């Protein structure tokens, strides 16, 4: 369906803002409920039915708090950092195809655009930490940069492998190629590259590291660094960082769904694409929560060792292997 350009823009803005906002709020609820269940607790129960109003109560609390800009900080950067983290995540959602026809923009270089915007995320946390004029925040900023540089490499190697296999950077086209049964999903296409499931695992691990999720939450290591780069932020300044973190998780899971799990394609040919897309995406989100409450935080050298000694060699190998397979067959 063709709709006018201004209307499309407005619809996108309203849709994405509400989607990201609601998801950020309710993923916190999911996280807390999940954490509870994994530890045999019920999680939030008091505010509303099953604690469903808890995110709203939290939001009201954060909104009513004063935004403190501590003395001696770089005011501009301090204020800009949360926005710099939120905006790229929102921008990247422009190209995600939610179903056959539901995407804000069908860009031919969608994948490239996501990764171009995704890198700003690192800079935002670094700026937040740097401008806070706080020792913990600066340590955290340094960690974030080395961590994200380390994990950007295997991530991009995996994505290059995917681009080689699919031959396009258009996300809608990538999904269209995975039509049919379960075994047409990229993650199971072992005849193209026998290491496809491994590729997906590497992608998922890198996604966790890029979004600074446990067990790679070095940026916000509460037990060591107070709240890492977010130490000096109060009220909604912190709230926006928090929302952006969940928006990034959402984006990472959406991207994983598109690249590996067949996006809006239904494996059994029933129900609309949006349903399948959201189902796959939220399953990945659940896995993210599940991983967070299973593994303790890695030590920093363990984190870098994992990337440089395991993930990068393996992803390079899969890249070469799929190149060779494509040449041979």
């Amino acid at each position, binding site marked *: 369906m063709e709709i006018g350009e201004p209307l499309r823009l407005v619809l996108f803005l309203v849709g994405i803002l509400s989607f990201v906002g609601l998801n950020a709020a309710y993923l916190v609820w999911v996280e807390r409920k999940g954490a509870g*269940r*994994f*530890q*045999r*607790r*019920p999680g939030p129960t008091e505010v509303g039915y099953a604690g469903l109003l808890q995110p709203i109560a939290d939001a009201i609390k954060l909104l009513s708090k004063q935004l403190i800009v501590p003395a001696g900080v770089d005011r501009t950067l301090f204020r800009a950092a949360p926005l710099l983290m939120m905006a790229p995540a929102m921008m990247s959602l422009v190209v995600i195809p939610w179903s056959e026809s539901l995407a804000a923009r069908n860009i031919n270089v969608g994948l490239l655009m996501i990764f171009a915007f995704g890198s700003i995320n690192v800079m935002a946390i670094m700026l937040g930490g740097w401008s806070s004029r706080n020792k913990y925040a600066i340590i955290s900023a340094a960690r974030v940069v080395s961590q994200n540089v380390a994990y950007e490499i295997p991530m991009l190697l995996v994505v290059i492998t995917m681009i080689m296999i699919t031959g396009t950077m258009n996300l809608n086209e990538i999904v269209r190629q995975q039509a049919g049964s379960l075994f047409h999903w990229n993650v199971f296409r072992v005849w193209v590259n026998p290491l496809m499931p491994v590729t997906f695992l590497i992608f998922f691990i890198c996604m966790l590291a890029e979004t600074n999720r446990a067990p790679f939450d070095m940026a916000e290591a509460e037990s060591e660094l107070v709240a890492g780069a977010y130490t000096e932020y109060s009220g909604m300044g912190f709230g926006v960082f928090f929302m952006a973190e969940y928006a990034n998780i959402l984006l990472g899971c959406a991207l994983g769904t598109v690249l590996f799990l067949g996006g809006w394609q239904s494996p059994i040919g029933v129900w609309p694409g949006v349903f399948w897309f959201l189902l796959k995406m939220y399953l990945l989100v659940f896995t993210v929560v*599940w991983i967070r*409450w*299973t593994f303790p935080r890695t030590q920093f050298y363990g984190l870098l060792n994992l990337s440089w000694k*395991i993930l990068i060699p393996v992803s390079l190998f899969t890249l070469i292997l799929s190149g060779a397979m494509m040449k041979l067959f």
Partner: protein
Amino acid sequence: MKHALKEIYVGFKSLVVGMRITLEQFFKPTVTVHYPHETLKIPPRFRGHIELVRDPATGKPICYACKLCEKACPSDCITVEGAKVDGAKKRSVTQYRLDFTKCSLCGSCVEACRDGAIRFSREYNLAGLSKEDFVMDLFKRLEQEARETEPPGGGAGPAQPPAAPPAGSTAEKVEKPATEVK
């Protein structure tokens, strides 16, 4: 190379095992006791602050102010006053002051009592706004309890342990049947 591959394999396997364990826990029932809505059963030998025991026959406190408990108390938190009522054989207690801020719940007073006139209460919802809330008169407490729990003219039944909380403590009215949790 072989060593590195083995390390990856063993490490990955342990991660999968860990995730399986947490997922198993995820589907098991929760073990939380939702405290204000449900409470655990208090163990029979629970030591709350002490309280006076009523004589089931007369409804009056058994205590006759012999002050043995006062002497037994190592932290000096009990003050007993008694008076002889005309016609009665024994003295009867008129004031039993317990300074709970000093009490360490050692139980020497309960041990010292020859007639079982004091015992540990089962009161644990103790909260107050001032220190004075915890200097309580157990005799007055007992009388108040008698007024509240028994209808006028009714026989003095056996005293029920947790009744009126001391002054200042917020009365917990949500007393659903205590759910027993193993």
